[in-house]
């Protein structure tokens, strides 16, 4: 598909000007303000802010819970994508549409519902709490909610790839004497790996920044169930000097998400080639 290099079509200047102005005002200036403020602090002050025990606990929980949730989302996502593409059963189309619900549902609603469902008197909590599974106001609650917001990313990344496997390799593997499991393990799975990793990274990036739903389900206890975004908000609300501390904490989180973005772009380029 030929794209025109000499700018034959009109509107180059206008669209460039509009796009650049918009991005500068909405993205570059604010995020720049965050970074510049953090750099003004001086190294020792910055380090005390981001390396305090409470901050370390919050970051640890944010990264840990997001990693676990992304791993679980990857497993669940692969299963759901596989079933939705390969098997036909009543309600398949409905389930396929419902996969997108977590992307459309406001996170506050998700948080509200999950905190209710898994609390001691809730629909699911009444069975789980007696078994010792506390999936409300606990670290487990954070993981559950992050799986809810994360698994659609994996399904939607893996689904088109499973769809594009046309069965030729499978037939070849069969004719060469492989059984179904060997075919999956050595022929199908390797083809899915790039998309699985991309989906994992997307779910992880989403989990790291998630705030709305976790506020409801975690209980937000410092050192126990307090995630990094929540710590940033509470420091900000304390005001005064604590705003600088919030800025330092936010800058670390910002750096992590920009790294994730670069990684995801690389992964997407890789899975498209592979």
């Amino acid at each position: 598909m030929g794209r025109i290099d000499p700018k034959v079509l009109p509107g180059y200047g206008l669209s460039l000007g509009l796009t650049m102005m918009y991005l500068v005002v909405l993205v570059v200036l604010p995020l720049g303000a965050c970074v510049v403020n953090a750099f003004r602090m001086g190294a020792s002050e910055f380090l005390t802010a981001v390396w305090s025990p409470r901050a370390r606990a919050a970051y640890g929980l944010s990264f840990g819970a997001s990693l676990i949730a992304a791993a679980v989302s990857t497993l669940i996502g692969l299963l759901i994508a596989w079933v939705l593409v390969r098997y036909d059963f009543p309600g398949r189309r409905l389930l396929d549409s419902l996969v997108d619900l977590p992307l459309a549902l406001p996170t506050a609603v998700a948080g509200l519902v999950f905190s209710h469902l898994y609390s001691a008197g809730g629909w699911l909590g009444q069975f789980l709490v007696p078994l010792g599974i506390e999936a409300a106001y606990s670290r487990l609650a954070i993981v559950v909610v992050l799986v809810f917001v994360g698994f659609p990313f994996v399904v939607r990344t893996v689904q088109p790839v499973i769809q594009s496997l046309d069965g030729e390799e499978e037939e070849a593997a069969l004719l060469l004497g492989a059984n179904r499991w060997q075919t999956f393990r050595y022929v199908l799975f390797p083809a899915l790996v790039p998309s699985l990793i991309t989906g994992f990274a997307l779910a992880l990036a989403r989990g790291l920044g998630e705030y709305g739903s976790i506020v409801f389900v975690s209980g937000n206890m410092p050192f126990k169930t307090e995630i990094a975004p929540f710590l940033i908000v509470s420091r900000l609300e304390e005001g005064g000097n604590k705003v600088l501390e919030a800025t330092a904490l936010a800058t670390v989180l910002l750096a992590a998400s920009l790294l994730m973005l670069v990684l995801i772009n690389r992964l997407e380029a890789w899975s498209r080639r592979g």
Partner: protein
Amino acid sequence: MKSEMITQEAVPWPREACRSNGKLSHALRRQTQDPLWVRLVLISLTVLLMGVLVVIPLIHVFYEALRDGLVTYGRYILADPDTRHSIVLTLIVAPIAVLCNVLFGLAAAWLVARFRFPGRTLLVAMIDIPLSVSPVVAGLSFVLLFGMQGFFGPSLRAMGIDILFTVPALIIATTFVTLPYVARELIPLMETLGPDEELAALSLGANGWQIFWRVTLPNIQWGLLYGIILCNARAMGEFGAVSVVSGRIPGETMTMPLQVELLFQDYNSPAAFALASVLTLLAVITLILKVYLEGRHHLRRPPPAWGASPTTPQEKINGTAGGTLP
């Protein structure tokens, strides 16, 4: 013409031979199907997981909201002036943010899909930034920009303009968070369409606006609508960024999601669920519109069942080439 060529190239002859020999092909197809018990186990697992993760929460919202009857439900939503205000505020903030991002998305798609220029890849990457930055970090950044200790705060204050903790702040924060949604839908679409029709219009003497209104817009209208729907859903549900810049002033800067949290913290769960059910209804409508647009206008079509209807090579190409960030 093009798709015929691809078809012929994509199917190597031994497979074609298998196909023509109906018996062998049928046997192969059956053997590459998973055994019945595997299928049943995996389908049950999927139904169970989707039930626990999505279906039960969905039903639960409406159950909790309606358990005291329709009259009480209506009172929860309409009697409290703060709740009413939050609904109106969301209906003001979200459309303005969507409109801004539609204008941006059109400009960005025209720029990226029709021209090559230095820094193009970087610009596309920048559009994605709001998708991965935590909404809380975004909110804090706007506080730093517009707050009293911020860059613009003092000078804006001198002019008598307050942005932080007001409705404009909510709009700016929402616009930031939903910035990529329209652009990400339009850029790949316009790249697939190619510039040929616009070039033809140009050669026939159309000016820029005529090309845009009569050629480009009719071609991308359904993709644009799709982007608007996704953008709007995200805008109405935004919580983190809006929560930070709002100052949480009841009756003034509380959007619906913020009001849900306020009611929840006041131990007023029934009212919180009633308001949450309105948001959920909006999400469900979004999904229905999305499925309709996908089916009717072939935007990101959901996959057909394996073996139910064979995908054409063209669809396969479309399927693998699509973007992944929803």
